[in-house]
């Protein structure tokens, strides 16, 4: 079953790209809604933090990159190793296998698996409040 998430991405515009209507073009060309969370712009450049449906994230990110925009898929989950007691309350919740128990039964966060996914399902599943969303 394909599960849908919102992928949180940062679009960075430079002097060349900031005055072009790139975001609108991508939305129209791809026919995909993009939820803009925050935007900071001036003539020299700027950033847009946005959320995209996970099923269309790949093609949207590609379209922005082709138009010269730098796209950062934000790291979103941070694990506080001081607070974590390696119980594993987060492990069964994670749909991406980004949280696993390693050989020594320590909870391990695989950031590459989790990248950009704002599902955040694990955050309130942690009894020690050792996981938090960042970005």
């Amino acid at each position, binding site marked *: 079953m394909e599960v849908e998430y919102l992928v949180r991405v940062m679009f960075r515009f430079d002097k060349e790209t900031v005055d072009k209507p790139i975001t609108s073009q991508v939305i129209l060309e791809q026919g995909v809604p993009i939820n803009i969370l925050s935007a900071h712009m001036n003539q020299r450049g700027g950033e847009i933090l946005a959320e995209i449906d996970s099923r269309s994230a790949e093609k949207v990110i590609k379209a922005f990159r082709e138009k010269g925009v730098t796209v950062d898929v934000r790291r979103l989950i941070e694990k506080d190793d001081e607070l974590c007691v390696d*119980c594993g309350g987060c492990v069964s919740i994670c749909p991406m296998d980004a949280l696993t128990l390693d050989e020594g039964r320590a909870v391990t966060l695989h950031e590459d698996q989790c990248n950009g996914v704002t599902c955040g399902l694990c955050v309130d599943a942690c*009894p020690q409040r050792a996981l938090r969303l960042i970005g």
Partner: protein
Amino acid sequence: MKDLVESSGVKVALRDVDVVTTGTFGAMCSSGAVINLGHADPPIKIEKAWINDVPVSHPGAAVDLFIGASQMSETDPFEYGGGHAITDLIGGKEVELRATAPGTDCYPRTRLEVTLTKDDLNQFYLINFRNCYQRYACATNGRDEIIYTYMGKLLPHYRNANYSGSGELNPLANDPDYETIGLGTRIFLNGGVGYVIGEGTQHNPTTGFGNIMVKGDAKAMDPEFIRGASFTRYGTTMYNGIGIPIPVLNEGIVQKLAVRDEDIYTDVVDYGVPRRGRPTLRKINYKELKSGRIDVNGQSVKAGSLSSIRKAQQVSEALKHWIEGGRFFLTAPIERLPSDTVFKPMKQPKGAAFVENIVHEAVTCTEDEDIEAVAARLINRNANHVVVVDGDGRLAGIITSWDLTKSIANGGDGLGDYIVRAVHTASINEPLEAVSKTLAEHNISALPVIDGERRVLGIVTSEDISKLVGGRVLG
């Protein structure tokens, strides 16, 4: 020990090993601490008290308090509780104590506010009345929504499962007949020394769900092995680390110490059914649980642990070092734990009511029916909700009289556009408190009642519940 028994046999293990240390580290809600504050000047006979805004009970005389791990802060409930306050004290942090009192001739003071650390306290004893379960049920959720439980966050449609307990490392699982663990057994309790003071509440030995009551000096405990914890929308609790040494006295004990995860069975239970008798889906052993994937109704489901096996190993290792270093001596129990205690359910209280008590036949229709026919049926039956079903009587949606009015006003020619398809539902054995919560949370007025195959059994409405609360049914 387990490997040694497998490789060299029971006799060699008995000859070569004196003591086996065990350990567990998990959420144990029925934990708490007794605190004696000493007397203020002028003195107070505390009536109500709070530590860091967590209400504290005052079961004894003037300045004796009991702080329960699952008591929640009044200002930060569900996040901060007694378990956190106890852990903060153990970690050397300052806590705020507030207290009020009626004032008496001998204890004239009526209010008190003071900042305390553990060094300011006389006694600070952990007294945990149900700890260290021999095994625990594995929880999953058959409902169509996420539920938040003391077994963690459970995804809908059995999409995950959570278990607790350290399996073959668990103290009581290694002494299932309670031959060496009993009243007076000295134990590792949260990094300090503690004692077993008897069977725990709800001790259930005949089904293999035994547990113990323990006490220990909290001042000597180590925050590495005791933690406050928060279960979202359930509340607060406390993680305890308990290690128990088992003396290798005879071959029978060796054989029991050789127990493996695959020998320790528990139940996979559907926590989606909010009843005392939650349905058991299957039996499962700790080997399968610890593998991280289990089979539930033919699906492979991720299984997560709520207790820390890594910490349990650290507890067991720490206790081993204490014993080897001559810092910890084993005791013989002065009384064995009972092996025949029966864990009874509560005598049924008055006032409990379930969907089955008020469910009634739903007005139904199929999607292809005429609006007029459906509207006439609603009027005839004096109802406000029509449950839409497919050809097999399975739930397809719901339409309210308001939706129907809208469709007629708009001159619509089909029901299709007005059917609400994401329908909240109830099951026949659900308590009405749970139904009321669903109705209120989603601001709706009725729930179709369905079975496991989504066949419509009837409907419950807020009107039915109002009548019940009004006394018509309960009398």
